[in-house]
């Protein structure tokens, strides 16, 4: 058992993910792909810039997935590996990646759920390999923030968090 650990997301990770997600969007004819971690933080956004608040979106996505995970267990399932939310114009398809990250695909009536599902399946396997590598790297120990960061952040806290 341990305290919280941090993990990092490097530029080269973002570049590899960008390639995978861009090709997903092209092949599925979807609008936007987002990666959200299970604690509710946005990792990456590819495609059309979302018109919603991404921070709030990430927090609600993680909560949605977690709640559905518990529902799955009540049914005796290990998980619901994917979720689908249907709207009049825009719909969301969410899929689990390596139990740590959620891939969200935003699409409209220019494509079909079937095609999105099919393309997501392929990309989830590639993303899972990538994230598993990233987490293994963290377990070996990673560089943290640079010296001086904590001091400056503390000054900002004193300025911002006051009556």
């Amino acid at each position: 058992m341990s305290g919280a650990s941090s993990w990092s997301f490097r530029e080269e990770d973002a570049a590899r993910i960008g390639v995978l997600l861009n090709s997903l969007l092209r092949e599925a004819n979807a609008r936007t792909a987002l990666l959200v971690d299970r604690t509710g933080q946005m990792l990456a956004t590819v495609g059309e810039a979302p018109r919603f608040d991404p921070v709030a979106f990430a927090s609600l996505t993680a909560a949605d997935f977690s709640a559905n995970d518990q529902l799955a267990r009540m049914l005796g399932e290990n998980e619901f590996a994917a979720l689908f939310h249907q709207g009049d114009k825009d719909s969301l398809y969410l899929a689990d990646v390596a139990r740590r990250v959620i891939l969200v695909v935003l699409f409209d009536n220019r494509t079909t759920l079937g095609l999105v599902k099919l393309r997501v399946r392929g990309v989830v396997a590639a993303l899972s390999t990538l994230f598993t590598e990233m987490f293994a790297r963290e377990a070996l120990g990673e560089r943290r923030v640079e010296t001086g960061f904590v001091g400056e952040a503390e000054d900002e806290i004193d300025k911002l968090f006051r009556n």
Partner: protein
Amino acid sequence: MSLINYASREINCKLVYYGPGLGGKTTNLEYIYEKVAPASKGKMISLATETERTLFFDFLPVDLGTIRGFKTRFHLYTVPGQVYYNASRKLILKGVDGVIFVGDSQVERMEANIESMQNLYDNMTQHGLDLTRLPFVIQYNKRDLPNAAPLAQLQEALNPGWPVEDPVRQRATPDPNRPEEMLVQEIDGMWLERVPYFEAVALRGDGVFDTLRAISKLVLKTLG
């Protein structure tokens, strides 16, 4: 766990307000939302029942600004306090970087406080997290009420101290917020550590930012 995103140059930390129902967790967030400069806060989300009791969580992102090239943000969450919402409560603790326990000072709520604290330990353990090794502070809310229990009694029940096993940390450490009191001290041959605590009247904002400043700084230290 805090996430350092080198690609988008962002650092996000998750803080969770925990405690018994109607203890003032949402009130803490509402006060922070009201007082923090508009440019520094995001949208506050409350998943609540129609009677405004927290059903799943409240969420408020607060930006510290860009520090050494990194946009630094705290994600503040509350959990639903009512006993029967434990499944939701447990979910919110996932990936937590720092915990604020909001205790209700009223004598009548002592048992609810103790039960909630025990529930916090249990839920953290189920996530593989050890509360004694994470940034953790306690806020005793509603100090203005006539039926508020004495601080000593609350401390004894909710913050009695846990044994310090690590010899390096077995040294008398004063509480930076109360120089006359100790966070780590030897009592009857045993080293004990208590967590920092704050008195509050969250409805009028007393102690709200003192608590938030303390937990934020403790979390940042874990990044350095």
